[in-house]
């Protein structure tokens, strides 16, 4: 973690510490004596939705995200979040996510589970087969083009910069020119 020390108790935008407002911190009976986030490990993230770049604090206990809320230290959002940003907890704990690779054979009516090993090997084989078959060394004018038009790629603004960078690097090494993503549409 390369975080500067941040005080989680700081309120979102008023910049006042509530404890300095004189609240009696003596626990009442009807609510939990301790916050459910007490003792959680905190990291920061940036919201994966729009392009404002709101900073979010992710609290983790026992390897599970237990709370997400706006990071008051960010000058961009000052602790605030929109409903999408406020819902990141449900992205992290999401029962609908796919947990392992899936494969659908030609003509099949259902998905079936497949190992990463098998999926990746098959895809690599298909990339090579298609690339080798359709690779264009020279165009009709005799100019060297070293490309393949038969494989295309779209994506992704959902990836980190570093991922985008190695992805474009990889795709171009394969000779792809049909490379597009969300920015176009």
């Amino acid at each position, binding site marked *: 973690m390369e975080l500067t020390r941040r005080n989680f108790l700081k309120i979102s935008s008023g910049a006042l510490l*509530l404890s300095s407002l*004189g609240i009696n911190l003596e626990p*009442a009976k009807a609510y939990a004596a301790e916050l459910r986030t007490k003792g959680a490990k905190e990291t920061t993230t940036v919201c994966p939705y729009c392009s404002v770049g709101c900073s979010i604090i992710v609290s983790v206990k026992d390897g599970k995200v237990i709370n997400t*809320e706006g990071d008051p230290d960010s000058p961009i*959002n000052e602790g*605030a979040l929109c*409903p999408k940003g406020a819902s990141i907890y449900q992205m992290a704990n999401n029962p609908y996510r796919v947990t392992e690779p899936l494969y659908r054979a030609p003509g099949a009516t259902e998905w079936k589970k497949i190992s990463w090993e098998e999926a990746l090997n098959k895809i690599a084989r298909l990339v090579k087969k298609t690339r080798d078959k359709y690779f264009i060394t020279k165009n009709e004018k005799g100019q060297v083009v070293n490309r393949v038009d038969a494989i295309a790629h779209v994506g992704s603004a959902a990836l980190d910069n570093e991922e985008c960078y190695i992805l474009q690097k990889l795709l171009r090494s394969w000779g792809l020119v049909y490379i597009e993503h969300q920015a176009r549409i």
Partner: protein
Amino acid sequence: MARKALLITPDLCIGCRACQVACKEWNQLPATKTKNNGTHENPMDLDANNFNRIKFIEVADAKGVKWLFVSHRCMHCGEPACVQICPVGALIKDKDTGAVYYDKNKCIACHACKSACPFDIPRYDQGGKGKIAKCHFCIDRVKAGLVPACAKTCPTQSIKYGDREALIKEAKTKGYKLYGETDLGGLGVIFALKDSPKVYKLVENPRISESVAFWGSVLRTLVGRGDSTASTFVKYLAHKSTEK
């Protein structure tokens, strides 16, 4: 210590409903299966899993159209009728902050509080049949020195948390008319308005029925007797008390 409040300024609200989601996130409330009812508003009412929501109000006149976004939730009354009527002390007025919160372990699901509430706020779990559920001012956060989840997340500070007096002063300085400054012992949720409360579909001149205190003492006496039929009888009477 100074009483706390949430100052709601519909003029600043962008209807994003981060407050609805942040409330669910902090309180770990599940989503409700909804449908579109010909409006952006959803859910259409408070329920045991929705402690606050934004009402979307369109007002059209010759000058054009206004689209108002108004928070709907427990008002955290200064003199809460629900606390007065509750026969078991499950509803509690926090003396530090003014928050009206509750102890589900004590609640006997008599639903008297719903009948007493001038804002029709209390809702009940188990499909409306069970124990009380409502905005509790994020009492756990507030006691730990944090801001309630809705106010923390609000992008435009249309929900603002702070010392009640200071918030009132601030809103007045900005030229707003206040709703809830003095009603019912002063509300813990105050609205800063530019128009009449009616336009925002707020309860005009909220009042507590005079019978609330009476029913409260009747129910408490019965509960105090503790015989085996009392609980059923209390529920019966509580329901009777709703037939205003």
